């Protein structure tokens, strides 16, 4: 059990030491990376351990706030993902951020993130989850805004923070509702009384789902994730592809297990969750088709895959969702790190239409990127294939319409990923930067190779025993209806992508609706932000200035002051005035005592 506490607090200690003691020292990256490796080792040691260890943090009446660690397959498996990707990203960052001036700050932020993420994964109750939930939001904010000198980065960080806040507000309400319903905040003690109506419980679950919508960037709060690509690419790989955005799915699955799958299945909320996931998957995949920034394509594909996972949880096939989370973490981290290597090689060029021919110039990066790409588009016998099959299977069993939506997404995914790969890696170099690209250093490609191996084999039985959760038949291959559906989807999507984009210098397709991301961002900026923000600001201003300041605070003081002014008039300072009042008083006293 002590190991678990070390696992939790080691990154925090490292972050504190880095920030307070080492500051801008050159060894900060090494210290931070060493701690990441140590946490990975501890995570392996903890595999298979179970148990709950907690202590009281604060006691208010008969209400206990606990800080506790829950070890089970879910949390230990998730820790493997977090620390595994984390370690590789740390190592990759050593090379990627070598020349960055703020690299000490960067690595401190990474350690802080590792601490926060570990806290979410190991938490045994909702309050602790919520605290660390906010902490990952904070570290994500710090890392997205790493290049805060750029306005776009600062804005993206702010946007991410605000979107998350919107979701977290619902999350907090949901936590309180669940507390009210079950009387406990600990996951393991949660039991739903029979008297509680499903509508109430549904509302609570939906509020909690709001937190997941924010953190896992589901519709309609997805807008922050593509913008978050302003951060350094390894951060995108770690936080915005593999771990933090998966926290929403992880937490939803936790809730599902705590409440009991039967209870969860009976809720109207589960259908809403599933549909939100399915629609997000579809919409994000459509948007990805028309993006030119290599990281943005990957960001939308992340959205789409997260939609899959949320859909799986909503369909009460959480194991399938978590399994997809596990495989997705490896291959998406690989894709992001690969794109980081490409961007690094092309001197921070991110537009795929200015790349091209990179497979020849950087073969290791190209091949590993291809393997990740293959896993993402679910080429049979790669990890992504197995996990996506399980989600499709769950959808097929429970919600045919969602199944066909998911199948359509499975066509779109190969299409836009083929577009990306063909344009960026094949053909001729389309700019001088791409022409001068060369293979990256071993410090960068070694993590790529490791991730590529995992992306391919991650779905098989011996690896998926590390996974947070997996259905019993994970990694098995059957030639059934589902296989043919996904195989056809793959061939259609990839084939269409290849035919359409091979050898092209410009985008032959131009769909403004998709390019502009369904105008959702514009809508938010022009309507929600402008009108609602101003209206809201006016309301808040009204409350603050008029009601609170004007009436409550100012009103009391003004009331006292004006009463005082009124009585002040009586204090004329005229001696005779006082004497007159005194005489009148005497006369009144005589009147009351003698004549009444």
């Amino acid at each position, binding site marked *: 059990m002590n190991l678990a506490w070390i696992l939790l607090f080691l990154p925090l200690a490292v972050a504190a030491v880095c920030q307070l003691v080492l500051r801008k020292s050159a060894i900060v990256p090494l210290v931070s990376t060493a701690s990441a490796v140590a946490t990975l080792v501890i995570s392996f040691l903890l595999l298979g351990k179970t148990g709950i260890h907690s202590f009281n943090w604060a006691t208010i009446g008969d209400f206990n706030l606990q800080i506790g660690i829950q070890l089970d397959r879910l949390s230990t498996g998730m820790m493997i993902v977090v620390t595994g990707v984390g370690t590789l990203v740390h190592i990759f960052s050593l090379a990627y951020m070598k020349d960055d001036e703020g690299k000490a700050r960067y690595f401190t932020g990474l350690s802080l993130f590792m601490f926060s993420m570990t806290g979410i994964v190991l938490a045994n109750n909702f309050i602790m989850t919520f605290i660390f939930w906010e902490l990952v939001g904070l570290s994500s904010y710090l890392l997205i805004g790493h290049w805060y000198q750029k306005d776009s980065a600062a804005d993206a960080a702010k946007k991410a923070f605000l979107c998350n806040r919107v979701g977290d507000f619902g999350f907090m309400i949901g936590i309180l509702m669940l507390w009210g319903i079950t009387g406990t905040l600990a996951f393991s003690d949660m039991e739903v009384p029979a008297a509680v109506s499903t509508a109430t419980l549904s509302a609570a679950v939906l509020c909690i789902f709001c937190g997941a919508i924010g953190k896992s960037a589901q519709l309609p709060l997805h807008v922050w994730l593509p913008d978050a690509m302003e951060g350094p690419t390894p951060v995108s790989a770690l936080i915005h592809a593999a771990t933090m955005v998966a926290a929403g799915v992880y937490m939803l699955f936790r809730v599902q297990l705590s409440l009991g799958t039967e209870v969860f299945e009976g809720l109207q909320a589960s259908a809403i969750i599933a549909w939100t996931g399915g629609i997000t998957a579809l919409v994000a995949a459509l948007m990805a088709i028309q993006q030119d920034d290599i990281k943005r394509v990957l960001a939308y594909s992340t959205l789409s895959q997260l939609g899959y996972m949320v859909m799986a949880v909503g369909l009460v096939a959480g194991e399938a969702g978590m399994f997809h989370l596990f495989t997705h973490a490896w291959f998406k981290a690989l894709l992001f790190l690969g794109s980081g290597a490409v961007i690094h090689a092309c001197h921070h060029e991110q537009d795929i239409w200015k790349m091209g021919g990179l497979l020849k110039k950087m073969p290791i990066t190209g091949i590993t990127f291809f393997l990740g790409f293959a896993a993402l588009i679910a080429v049979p016998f790669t990890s992504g294939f197995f996990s996506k099959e399980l989600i499709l299977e769950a959808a097929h069993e429970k919600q045919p319409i969602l199944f066909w939506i998911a199948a359509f997404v499975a066509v779109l995914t190969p299409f836009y990923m083929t577009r990306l790969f063909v344009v960026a890696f094949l053909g001729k170099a389309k700019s001088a930067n791409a022409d001068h690209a060369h293979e990256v250093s071993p410090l960068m490609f070694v993590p790529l190779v490791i991730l590529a191996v995992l992306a391919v084999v991650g779905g098989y039985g011996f690896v998926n025993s590390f996974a947070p959760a997996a259905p019993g038949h994970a990694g098995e291959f059957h030639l059934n209806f589902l296989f043919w559906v996904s195989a056809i989807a793959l061939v259609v999507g990839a084939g269409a992508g290849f035919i359409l984009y091979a050898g092209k210098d410009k985008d032959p397709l131009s769909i403004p609706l998709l390019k502009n991301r369904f105008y959702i961002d514009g809508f938010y900026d022009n309507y929600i932000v402008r009108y609602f923000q101003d209206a809201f600001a006016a309301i808040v201003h009204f409350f603050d200035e008029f009601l609170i300041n004007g009436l409550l605070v100012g009103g009391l003081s003004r009331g006292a002051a004006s009463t005082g002014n009124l009585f002040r008039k009586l204090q004329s300072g005229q001696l*005779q005035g006082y004497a*007159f009042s005194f*005489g*009148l008083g005497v*006369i009144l006293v*005589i009147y009351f005592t*003698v*004549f009444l």
Partner: protein
Amino acid sequence: MPSYLFWLFSTIMLIGGTAVIAFRNPVSSALSVVTCFVGLSGLFIGLSAFFVGVIQILVYTGAVMVLFLFIIMLLDLKDEQKRAKGLAPALAGFTLFIAFMVQLIGVLSRTPDKTAPPLDAATLTAAATAFPSGGKIAANLAEGRLPDVHLIGHTLFTQYNLPFQILGVLLLVATIGVVALSKRHAE
């Protein structure tokens, strides 16, 4: 006391009192107070309170009012040039006066009136038995005279001895206070 004397002294007293507030020169006011107090002591003496009447003249008219005049002279006060602003103060004073008098008449009309008990030789002789024989009080009373000073002294030094001593202390305190107040403080 015959009625006409009572009304005479009352009139002197009330005219004096009215003159106090009517005159604008403080010296005239002070002299009016003296007039008023002379009438008042006449009333005291008419009420057989000879000692109080004499004291009224000696202390008030002789000492207090001289002190007033002294201060008025010292400050070299001119006439009250400024008339009080508007009618308000006059109206206020008049209102109080009227209200007070209405109430007073109301009270007096409700209470049964009383005439003075006789204080002739017979009652005084009869009262002499309450005092130790051989003393001056008893001797005077037996002769049909009212030994006013002796009676006051008797009451003062027997029944009111402690308050009398305390009064002495009060006067001492007042003296010290006046000295402290009138001392010029070093700048």
